[in-house]
């Protein structure tokens, strides 16, 4: 159990913002969060970001935030953990408060991707794999890992490409009600099933997009209406051939187990969930690993509509990475942004009476995972 509470939240529109700088996006989200929290004194800043150095030639994001917002000569850092950069940044802020060093921390996440070519971004994303390996030399890609996994999942279960399409469709339908989401255009199951193939069996709609955007939180040990019950983080295999069970992502399972244990709750207690659907297949695995549904049966829950905002275990009511968008470093923070709105009762696709919320943020092909459990108090 932590003694940390969420006081303020901020998030930019997610999408294509070629005319806005990374700094502008980052500051916009931070200022929203500061205002939402009533402009408290901030003791430290942690910023999640993955490829700012690689494709935007910008580092020192922590110091830039402190300087531009006039926060004083406080300690700051950028945190990198691939697509889990945001979740790990949040955890660093929580650990700083738990240690007694800080009272109030500004945690943010940002990514700027749409100015760069798809091949440059693909190259940068490949940095989240173990590149000194025979797998990389063979030509395995990031989406390719989840393609291999999906084909095996189909082989061992009754699932098919249609079930993955149902995940993508659900998240698109959720995004249609979220004005901050990247994709606001409706899609059909046929359109999703027949879209351009990226890596068999995953098509365009099964893969999260390139996105510009930022999100921010103010957390503090002073009480508020949203208590962070627990924060957990785990690592896992960095190569596909090292997986003991290809259809399991141990980092997700272990971070979930630790988060439940620390919070004193179980998967059955959670009212609303944001998980890391970097690919439609990943959402199916994550709902199994987090204990919401039995192993190898997540696809049945999808088929029965149980993960829709109207279902008994609503997943990605924001639209998820697939349709809210995936500005890599911002994603883990945007998940919390949306869940805090769920707990405040002001979210798009509001789940009635939501009290307990869970966020899971994944980095690499299962290399990192964080889980945070929030409670309305």
């Amino acid at each position, binding site marked *: 159990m932590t003694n940390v509470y969420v006081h303020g939240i901020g998030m930019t529109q997610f999408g294509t913002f070629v005319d806005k700088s990374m700094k502008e996006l980052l500051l916009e989200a931070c200022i929203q969060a500061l205002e939402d929290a009533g402009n408290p004194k901030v003791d430290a800043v942690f910023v999640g970001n993955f490829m700012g150095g690689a494709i935007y030639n910008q580092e020192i994001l922590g110091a830039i935030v402190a300087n531009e917002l006039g926060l004083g000569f406080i300690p700051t850092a950028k945190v990198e953990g691939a697509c889990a950069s945001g979740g790990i940044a949040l955890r660093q802020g929580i650990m700083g408060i738990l240690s007694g060093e800080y009272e109030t921390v500004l945690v943010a996440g940002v990514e700027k991707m749409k100015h760069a070519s798809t091949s440059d971004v693909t190259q940068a994303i490949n940095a989240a794999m173990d590149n000194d390996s025979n797998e990389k030399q*063979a*030509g395995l*890609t990031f989406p390719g890992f989840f393609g291999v996994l999906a084909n095996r999942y189909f082989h061992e279960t009754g699932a098919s490409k249609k079930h993955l399409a149902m995940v993508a469709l659900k998240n698109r339908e959720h995004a249609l009600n979220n004005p901050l989401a990247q994709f606001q255009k409706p899609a059909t199951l046929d359109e999703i099933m027949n879209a351009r193939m990226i890596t068999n069996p995953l098509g365009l709609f099964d893969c999260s997009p390139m996105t510009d955007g930022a999100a921010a939180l103010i957390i503090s040990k002073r009480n508020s209406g949203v208590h962070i019950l627990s924060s957990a983080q785990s690592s896992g295999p960095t190569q596909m051939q090292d997986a003991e069970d290809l259809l399991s992502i141990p980092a997700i399972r272990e971070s979930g187990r630790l988060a439940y244990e620390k919070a004193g709750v179980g998967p059955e207690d959670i009212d609303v969930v944001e998980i890391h659907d970097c690919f439609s297949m990943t959402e199916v695995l994550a709902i199994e690993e987090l204990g919401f549904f039995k192993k190898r049966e997540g696809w049945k829950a999808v088929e029965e509509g149980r993960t829709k905002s109207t279902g008994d275990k609503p997943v990605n009511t924001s639209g998820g990475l697939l349709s809210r968008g995936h500005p890599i470093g911002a994603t883990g923070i945007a998940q919390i942004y949306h869940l805090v709105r769920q707990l405040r009762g002001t979210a798009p696709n509001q789940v009635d009476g939501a009290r307990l919320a869970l966020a899971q943020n994944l980095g690499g092909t299962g290399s990192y995972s964080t889980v945070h459990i929030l409670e309305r108090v």
Partner: protein
Amino acid sequence: MKIFKCNSCDYASVSSKYTCPKCRSGKLEAQEVSPEGTVFSFTDIHIAPAEFADIAPYTIALIQLDEADVKVTARMDGPVQIGDKVALDKMEDGAYLYTKL
């Protein structure tokens, strides 16, 4: 093909590790096994990074070796299905290139 097997439990891998990730006490020791195996799963990569763009689409397979509880990621010389028997054709630039038997 060289694999690495733990000297105190049944863990084995195609790559070496400082200590055994399973029992966390054993050391991994090199062993030679046949590279022949069965396709455990695969994908056909249509959108490739720049360095592989000229050969796309190409097939990546995760191969279960016959002689050890070890899986190896390899590039195939053509399409495959789960369960296909495969053999090592050659090593090239640090990659295992396999062919269907």
